[in-house]
């Protein structure tokens, strides 16, 4: 379940990052607004939005259950442990990274998604998300929070992307390097892309 929902959420990231990248056309957010409007009104997308929310919920709930189960599997901890000798810190910290991402997600949703949908429900009008982005990212602390969120997302993806395949039983000497390298590239591109948005807006590189 973790792997399936994880891969599903990864597809969401692609779409989300793709559309948001439209701001880099530097056309005052025109292209971006076009696609944001499409996303905000298309029936299929709106249905998928519900599936997406469900995906997040399942991913999170399953993670909590597994964590609880796994904690119970070792009631007495080691007095001294040297886990860095056999595994990477981020592979052991998926829960922590995930929690940071969740916190970020709440803040992020409060900035854009919730007000926008609220407005749609109450007035039937969408907000101008581009100007909202410009507003939101004019505060340095917001930018810092977003960058931190992207940082966590990067490490979460570094482990999550490739191991989702492992969990689903896809492990083959011929394809493993491909999965690994695509995973790294994906983690870098998505995270850098996302992080570059608040940064570039803060420094007024996009207008």
């Amino acid at each position, binding site marked *: 379940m973790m792997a399936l929902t994880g891969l599903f959420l990864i597809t969401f990231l692609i779409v989300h990052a793709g559309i948001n990248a439209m701001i880099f056309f530097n056309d005052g957010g025109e292209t971006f607004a076009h696609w944001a409007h499409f996303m905000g009104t298309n029936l299929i997308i709106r249905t998928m939005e519900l599936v997406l929310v469900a995906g997040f919920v399942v991913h999170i709930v399953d993670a909590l259950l*597994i964590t609880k189960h796994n904690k119970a*599997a070792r009631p007495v901890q080691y007095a001294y442990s040297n886990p860095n000798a056999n595994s990477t810190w981020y592979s052991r910290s998926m829960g922590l990274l995930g929690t940071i991402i969740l916190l970020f997600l709440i803040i992020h949703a409060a900035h854009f998604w919730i007000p926008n949908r609220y407005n749609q429900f109450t007035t039937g009008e969408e907000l101008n998300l581009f100007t909202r982005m410009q507003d939101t990212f004019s505060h340095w602390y917001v930018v810092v929070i977003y960058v931190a969120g992207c940082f966590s997302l990067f490490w979460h993806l570094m482990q999550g992307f490739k191991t989702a395949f492992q969990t689903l039983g896809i*492990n083959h000497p011929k394809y493993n390097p491909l999965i690994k390298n695509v995973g790294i590239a994906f983690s870098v591109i998505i995270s850098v892309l996302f992080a570059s948005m608040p940064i570039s807006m803060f420094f007024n590189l996009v207008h």
Partner: protein
Amino acid sequence: MSENNMKITLKVWRQRNNKAKGALETYKVDEVSSDMSFLEMFDVLNDKLIREGKDPIAFDHDCREGICGMCSMYINGQPHGPLQGVTTCQLHMRSFKDGDTIVVEPWRAKAFPVIKDLVVDRSAFDRIIAAGGFISVNTGNAQDANALPISKELADRAFAAAACIGCGACVAACKNSSAMLFVSAKVTQLSLLPQGEPERQSRVLDMAAQMDAEGFGSCTNTGACEAECPKGISVSNIAHMNREFFAAELNKK
């Protein structure tokens, strides 16, 4: 070059029995030779403790040539110590320096309760094998061994999985105390071979169910098991088992 006069400080987990509370105690061992195995150093320490009228440290060991899987010990934060690819009995003191302090604890997992000091109960592994880690062929039922050709590649892969010694280092290393590496190695070995085909689906389901019932955690893919396995069992076996498991689940009536 061998050295004969190393001084080692040990912090060893002492626990009288399963019910008692345990704690680390400090011991000093002098005249340690770099040619000694880690367990031989414990022999020297125990000899000293007995002569002082103290209770020697209980630890599991038997063949002392790295194959029986009985020795354990979580040494300086790693199962079987700092050297990868070896069991504790094959870890030699040349891997340490004069003056080192070494912390030694038992395997820790709910499914491996402590019996005494560094000795734990690993019978959960036996029960997992009893649940399905076999091919049901009664004595005398076999056909001629060469009647069933098996490609060298397949035989070698099955052998690589079958090399598991059941020591439990994978569980000890895993932050979730997961037994997936152990279970998947057996599942993989038997599912690769044509002889294992008839029970292929029930086997993986039964073994997985027993594994959960024993209280092992779930795999979160940190790879610590593979890194610490003294026999180099690969996590690709875990992927293989996952595949077998999904197929069996989907096929289940």
